[in-house]
């Protein structure tokens, strides 16, 4: 086993579960999350020999994961259009039909509200609220200033609150 393969194995052990939960929040379905995680790790394996260490390993992995996830969403948007439906309707259907969704009605409503956020706000909301990623780290991953990320998160929070009813607590930042 060479150094690259050893590093890849470490990445799989350290990050596969975390990447899965991140992806799952976007795709709202276990089967698709499983497929997408495999695509992401295939990409990581292919790109690993060119990893030069300018960025931290975590940041590099997360950039690949977020890019692949956004590409998946964009493809899904086109697939939905070809079926004469919308990506929002498709995401709602997935949340309602996911056999591995174990939350209550409020959790379901939250997932649907997050799924309806614009792409960038959804990305920031998921990274901050579910993944609990610090803004500084998020800034390195997304290449956006901390101030802009905070603003995006605030707007996303307001939209989610409006969708859920203002009395529901979804954290402050």
């Amino acid at each position, binding site marked *: 086993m060479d150094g690259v393969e050893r590093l890849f194995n470490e990445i799989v052990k350290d990050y596969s579960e975390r990447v899965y*939960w991140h992806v799952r929040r976007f795709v709202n379905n276990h089967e698709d999350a499983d497929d997408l995680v495999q695509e992401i790790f*295939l990409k990581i394996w292919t790109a690993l020999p060119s990893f030069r260490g300018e960025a931290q390993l975590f940041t590099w992995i997360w950039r690949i994961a977020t890019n692949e996830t956004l590409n998946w969403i964009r493809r899904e948007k086109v697939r939905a259009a070809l079926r004469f439906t919308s990506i929002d309707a498709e995401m709602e259907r997935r949340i309602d039909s996911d056999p591995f969704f174990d939350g*209550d009605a409020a959790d379901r409503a*939250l997932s649907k509200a997050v799924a309806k956020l*614009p792409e960038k706000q959804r990305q920031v909301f998921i990274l901050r609220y579910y993944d609990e990623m610090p803004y500084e780290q998020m800034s390195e991953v997304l290449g956006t200033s901390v101030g802009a990320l905070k603003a995006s998160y605030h*707007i996303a929070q307001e939209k989610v609150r409006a969708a859920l009813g203002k009395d529901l607590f979804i954290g402050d930042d």
Partner: protein
Amino acid sequence: MSKRNDITTPEGYFGDLQERLLEIPARPARVSTVRRLTPYVAIAASFLVAVMLGNFILSKTAAPSPEDDTWTYVSYLADALDPDGAAMFDETDWYEDQEESGLSEEDIINYLLADGISVEHLNYLSYEAGY
């Protein structure tokens, strides 16, 4: 409200996932990125190019709507419809929402390439559609 307990996985999933991911280095590398164009994708491509062409013609022939113009009009409308809520209306947010609302040409091309259409065929279809 829980943050993670609302979604679960099949039992023993992460062990199984790790095993499958660790097999990636042993998989044979892809020999070629050129894939065969399936009839379904060809139909979808033609359809999408037709839609793109339709949008293009409409954008050139239809009278400009005020919504196309500027943020000023949206701001004016928001103010007129809901004077209290207008202050909460964020310009950046509005543009971001607009960006989300439709399919871009890039989305369509990304989809077609991911589904196996070759760049050459895509260029050919675009040429046929008059782009």
